[in-house]
């Protein structure tokens, strides 16, 4: 199993993850080995098996749609590097 560099570039785009030119060969090699390894899964017949998403088969618990947390945005935004008037700053996206 060998993945093509173009396939890795597509994945990087989907994952919003930059892989530098100097890293690409290593990523192609190791990801190909990983995918080759997990391909063993194809050897077992699972046509009659229900997929398992939760180890105790518990349903997702939902909570009432009520406000339970206090507003602490100043505290939380202390971890952001660029904030103005309570807003996070990012590169300009609209001309």
């Amino acid at each position, binding site marked *: 199993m060998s993945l093509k560099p173009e396939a890795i570039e597509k994945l990087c785009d989907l*994952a919003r993850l*930059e892989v530098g030119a100097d890293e690409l060969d290593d*990523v192609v090699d190791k990801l190909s*080995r990983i995918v080759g390894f*997990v391909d063993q*899964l194809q050897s077992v017949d*699972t046509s009659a098996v229900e*997929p398992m998403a939760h*180890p105790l088969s518990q349903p997702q618990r939902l909570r009432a749609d009520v406000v339970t947390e206090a507003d602490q945005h100043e505290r939380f935004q202390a971890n952001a590097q660029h904030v103005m008037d309570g807003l996070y700053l990012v590169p300009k996206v609209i001309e």
Partner: protein
Amino acid sequence: MHFLERIKRYDDSLNAFITTTDAQALAQADAADARIASGTATRLTGIPIAHKDIFCTNDVKTSCGSRMLDNFVSPYDATVVSKLADAGVILLGKTNMDEFAMGSSNETSFYGAVQNPWKPGFVPGGSSGGSAAAVAARLCAAATGTDTGGSIRQPAALTGITGIKPTYGRVSRYGMIAFASSLDQAGPLTQTAEDSAMLLEVMCGFDERDSTSLNEPAPVLVESLQKPIRGMTIGVPDNFFDDGLDADNAAAVRTALAEFEKLGAKLKPITLRHIELSVPAYYVVAPAEASSNLSRFDGIRFGYRTEAPTDDLREFYMRNRGEGFGAEVKRRILTGTYVLSAGYFDAYYLQAQKARRLISDDFLEAFEDVDLIAGPTTPTPAFEIGQKTDDPVQMYLNDIYTIGANLAGLPAMSIPCGFVNELPVGLQLIGPHRKEDRLLQAAHQYQQATDWHLKLPPAFI
């Protein structure tokens, strides 16, 4: 003070801690003294512990072993942290770990590898490698860890200590930085099963803030430790003793099993037919969940933000993440993205979830006839730093005996059971859902009859 001094003296060589919290520790020690004097102390009041740096700790740097969170100071406490603080523990610091808990050797940490206290140049296991090394070298009395595919049990085995991963949902995941949400569980790393029981009892319990928290009363663990195990049936999976298991490791585990027989347990050979699928199934399910969980790290609201100027938002995200994450984390995100992408979802992700069912059903079937399952924790003792970093698949195969319990959500633990070439060997015990009490009881009874858990690395006496 004793432990803070030991950390200062020894941690330059071990690299087990990312952050130490000296001032907080001294304040908590004073508070513990006052609490003991006033007669309101718990069993854990005044006990000095360390938290794996995956647990958000209020006003303390919480890095998850990553450059991405090197600048992150948590604005809140994880439930595990607040529960233990309420019991009166003293926090000494935050321990080193594989980046985002992705690794089996602690070598993927942004803060560098951790040394095995038993032999310099050898890994302590991972991902909770800093916690394991710190407990083994007696730099703290106990530490917390997390276990997604073996990350408590494998380092416990490689450093000669005791570690337990409870049933999925027992311990709240709130404030525990998520890797693979359907597999992650927190637990203690300690010197003895008795210590593990004391910590785990406090860590467990329903939490409204974790939507996967098991809505059941916390288990009573300390009380059952003293019960003899006479009459217990222990299943021994024959396919855990295959060619992949080091012969000396196998011999140490067989000797431990014979000790359980002396204590009155019956051994029964079993076969977990689909266990060989557990590593491939895990390396689809866990990266898939990780690729989703780690999408929250964008470098904007918190975390690493690139220095390189860009006026393109997409490129900005890609750089923040590309520079903030290390190589193994990138591989897992890309693997997860691959198995979830259009055209591959059914062949990989859905197929892995079906294999997960087969693996889980094997365990459930086995537990109709046996009370516990026992076998090796790892295929070999600790290996050398750098030995397995070139081939991710070889590294993944370290977790061949531990991953099954995560996929099935079962409680499992590792206890020390001998040495090979002066390196510790671990015995793994796996229990039915919710039977942490039985695991700890068996482990405690074994530790009453043996002294492997009392051995100290010579350089740290």
